[in-house]
């Protein structure tokens, strides 16, 4: 007999629609003529699911008695006898009632499959055995009913029924998944968005067969406490060219993989060299980096690979992203590119990514020599060419017996001089000119091998040669110096525009500005010092970096004064004088930022005072109306009773006396609330924490509520653990919350007060079916003197909920508002369970198993 096929609908949470999907498929199959029966389907009183059962043949369930209750289970024998083509069996992970043939329903399904019957079933991701640990840490609940993974893996088809967490929560809020009275602490916790998202991800990954990967990542995340190791830190080296944008985006994508990472883009400006960056392009790249969530850094350094690696090591980077060099291949004669050098020197802890981009290999103009103030290598070459060149040339021309004529000889020597000028500058060229003219005279001017020159034209030739050589040398030298100046000014203006930009962007923190200065100039520490007058000692207004704070500006390596009473002090190395212009700008800016910070804190203080004023005004308004009303009532009643001109009947007298007492009670209650509020605000509430049984305290709290027997329904099980609270505060908090609920609930729909436990917390839920409160207002209702919407007539200064929350928090608990499924507001008061008793084993209630 061929084994039947197993088809499973897998879901992330109850209510996503697995049973519904299963039943839809059954209907489609029946329409196509397949013999399909319902062996066991549980609709949980969800109307849309229940409706789907109509029209399908249902095999009656078997009844079993267990512990004085009757349960129903699938009747396996009946299904086998009926021998349909397809059987629908809900909740594959279900544990059968003791007394059934098999312990678990999946074993029943095995029997059906062996008999050749196809089975369609449903499973939740939390039921898979191998995922137990992960699910427990997500939901906080250990799943007891589990299913061996192979049962699901062996299925011929696993279909994922997916629903977004938001949609699921909406279904929950409308009451489409569970009735409100079934919602308790465990379920509410299960349906938190964070939970649902994590479970959904787990389900998706499992179906994609990638759970191993997830588990490894998850475990390593879970056990690694330091952030450094697991998170990537990616440094992007920018040259200021347009390819920077590609690099930044690439780095951002790299950062998204795995556990997420940070992107730090660094632009290294030469302090004294040519740079090919346009400030506009840099600004664009900076915005791009910040939009993607990274940070932009601007560093000054001469040796680009070294500066980049220093920066990367300083921020503990794990990866460096660079662009492939823009040099053409022949330009490599001048040395390896930045990329190759960085890769070589990076060491084992830094990965270097060289990203190709459109600009690669297109060349970038003149190869930039290290330092346009001609470096040593060039000088040496210059001298070599300047002195050796003419010598070589002489050798060449005389031995090879090439008689090209004096004119051409002169020109050749001139070429050598120009080369020497280009390479080495003024002095080698002058030397070359001198040596060249001497050699020309001796070897090539007739009469040869003498210092005399026969032909006057030749004198002119050599003289002119010397003149031209000297001119060329000067021009080259001047050009080099001008270029150096221009580069310097450009670097400065970049930094200044960048500084101005940061001001406009509102980087108002003094420490951030000081850090920028420190970073830009690669100093060890930066501090802003100020003093009140010329004779007072210096104090430090802000300080960043390593090393001790300098006492006086004079002690620092670099001191930039701002006015008479402030100075920017930098320590680490001595900076060249040329940098002072930029530093002065930074220092001025730092002074401005400091001022602004101080003004801001003053403004904040003023705001607090204004807020305090508002509360006092509200209090006055509240007192004047809501306290006077009961007083008016008392006064009216007393006056009436005392008046001589009326005979009071016993009834009237009793009523008036009752009115006086009620008025007095209201006054007492209101004043009590006011006092509590002021105690809470000044922080003088000192709770006396004891272990208390909820089922004793809660009924006491309800005593003060009129008609509490009919308007409030209590459901506090005795089996709840004790809570560690202050009895008086708890009573008050519960009373206030219930009063509020009663005020807003409709006649005929009593307020339900229930309690449940989850792990180390006990929740008291006060459920009303009134109009409810929209999400935006849910926090506002807890503010003092707040009456949401149109308050019904009667008592209330708007303090009840504020006091309740204040008390709850003073005891180490919380008070939050949630929506009641189907409409209304549920107040959830969470309290800490008493430690001495074992906490309730956190297990998902039966209702959440599907």
């Amino acid at each position, binding site marked *: 007999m061929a084994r039947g096929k197993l088809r499973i609908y897998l879901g992330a949470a109850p209510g996503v629609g697995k049973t519904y999907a299963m039943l839809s498929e059954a209907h489609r199959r029946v329409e196509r003529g397949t013999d399909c029966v319902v062996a066991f389907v549980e609709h949980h009183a969800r109307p849309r699911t229940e409706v789907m059962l109509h029209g399908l043949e249902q095999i009656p369930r078997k009844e079993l008695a267990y512990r004085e209750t009757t349960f129903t289970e699938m009747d396996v024998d009946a299904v086998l006898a009926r021998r349909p083509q397809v059987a629908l069996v809900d909740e594959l992970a279900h544990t059968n009632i003791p007394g059934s043939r098999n312990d678990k329903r999946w074993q029943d399904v095995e029997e059906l499959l062996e008999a050749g019957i196809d089975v369609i079933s449903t499973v939740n991701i939390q039921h898979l055995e191998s995922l137990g640990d992960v699910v427990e840490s997500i939901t906080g609940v250990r799943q007891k009913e589990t299913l061996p993974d192979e049962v699901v893996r062996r299925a011929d088809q696993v279909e994922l029924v997916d629903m977004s967490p938001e949609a699921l929560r909406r279904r929950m809020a409308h009451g489409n998944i569970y009735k409100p009275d079934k919602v308790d602490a465990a379920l509410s916790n299960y349906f938190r968005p964070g939970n649902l998202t994590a479970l959904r991800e787990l389900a998706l990954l499992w179906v994609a067969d990638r759970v191993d990967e997830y588990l490894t990542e998850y475990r390593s995340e879970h056990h690694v406490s330091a952030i450094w190791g697991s998170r990537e830190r990616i440094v992007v080296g920018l040259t200021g060219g347009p390819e920077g944008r590609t690099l930044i985006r690439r780095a951002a994508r790299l950062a998204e993989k795995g556990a997420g990472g940070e992107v730090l883009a660094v632009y290294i400006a030469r302090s004294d060299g040519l740079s090919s960056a346009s400030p506009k392009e840099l600004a664009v790249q900076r915005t791009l980096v910040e939009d993607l969530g990274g940070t932009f850094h601007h560093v000054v350094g001469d040796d680009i690979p070294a500066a980049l690696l220093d920066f990367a090591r300083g921020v503990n980077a794990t990866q460096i992203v660079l662009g492939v060099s823009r040099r053409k291949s022949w330009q490599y004669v001048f040395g390896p590119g930045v990329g190759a050098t960085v890769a070589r020197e990076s060491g084992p802890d830094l990965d270097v990514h060289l990203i190709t981009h459109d600009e690669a290999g297109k060349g970038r103009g003149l190869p930039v020599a290290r330092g346009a103030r001609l470096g040593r290598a060039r000088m040496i070459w210059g001298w070599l060419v300047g002195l050796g060149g003419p010598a070589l040339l002489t050798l060449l021309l005389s031995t090879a017996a090439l008689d090209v004529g004096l004119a051409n000889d002169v020109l050749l020597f001139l070429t050598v001089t120009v080369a020497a000028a280009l390479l080495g500058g003024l002095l080698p060229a002058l030397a070359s000119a001198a040596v060249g003219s001497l050699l020309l005279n001796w070897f090539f001017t007739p009469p040869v091998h003498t210092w005399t020159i026969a032909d006057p034209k030749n004198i002119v030739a050599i003289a002119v040669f010397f003149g031209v050589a000297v001119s060329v040398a000067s021009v080259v030298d001047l050009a080099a110096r001008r270029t150096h100046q221009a580069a310097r000014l450009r670097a400065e203006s970049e930094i200044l525009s960048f500084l101005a930009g940061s001001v406009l962007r509102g980087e108002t923190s003094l420490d951030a500005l000081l850090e920028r200065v420190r970073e830009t100039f690669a100093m060890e520490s930066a501090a802003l010092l100020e003093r009140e007058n010329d004779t007072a000692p210096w104090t430090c207004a802000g300080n960043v970096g390593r090393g001790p704070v300098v006492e006086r500006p004079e002690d620092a390596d670099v001191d930039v004064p701002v006015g008479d009473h402030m100075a920017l002090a930098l320590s680490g190395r001595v900076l060249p004088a040329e940098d002072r212009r930029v530093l002065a700008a930074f220092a001025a800016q730092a002074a401005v930022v400091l001022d602004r910070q101080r003004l801001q804190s003053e403004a904040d203080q003023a705001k607090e005072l204004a807020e305090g004023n508002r509360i006092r005004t509200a209090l006055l308004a509240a007192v004047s109306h809501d306290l006077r*009303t*009961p007083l*008016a*009532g008392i006064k*009216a*009643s007393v*006056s*009436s009773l005392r008046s001589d*001109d*009326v*005979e*009071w*009947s016993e009834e*009237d007298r009793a*009523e*008036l006396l009752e*009115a006086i007492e*009620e*008025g007095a009670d*209201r006054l007492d209650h209101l004043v009590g609330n006011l006092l509590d509020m002021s105690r809470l605000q000044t922080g003088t509430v000192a709770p006396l924490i004891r272990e208390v049984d909820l089922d004793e305290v809660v009924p006491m709290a309800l005593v003060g509520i009129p008609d509490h027997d009919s308007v409030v329904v209590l459901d506090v099980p005795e089996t709840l653990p004790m809570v560690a609270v202050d009895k008086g505060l708890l009573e008050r908090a519960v009373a206030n919350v219930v009063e509020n609920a009663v005020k807003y609930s409709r006649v005929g729909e009593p307020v339900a007060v229930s309690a449940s436990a989850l792990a180390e917390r006990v929740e008291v839920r006060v459920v009303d079916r009134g109009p409810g409160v929209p999400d935006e207002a849910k926090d506002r209702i807890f503010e003092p003197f707040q009456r949401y919407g149109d308050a019904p*007539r*009667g008592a209330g200064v708007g303090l009840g909920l504020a006091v309740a929350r204040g008390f709850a928090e003073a005891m180490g608990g919380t008070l939050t508002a949630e929506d009641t499924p189907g409409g209304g507001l549920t107040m959830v008061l969470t309290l800490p369970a008493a430690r001495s008793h074992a906490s309730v084993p956190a297990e998902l209630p039966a209702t959440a198993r599907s």
Partner: protein
Amino acid sequence: MTRVLVVEDDLQLVRALVIDKQARHHGVDAAPDGATAVRLAATRQPHRFEN
């Protein structure tokens, strides 16, 4: 008989006032808000208003 219209939203105060007025053999109407007060004033035409 004097008719009195009591305009007051607080239930306890209303009760006290109504009892008082009734004991003095006045006819009493009670209105919890302005709109009702205007309506009752037009139809019942009290002699005095108290609020």
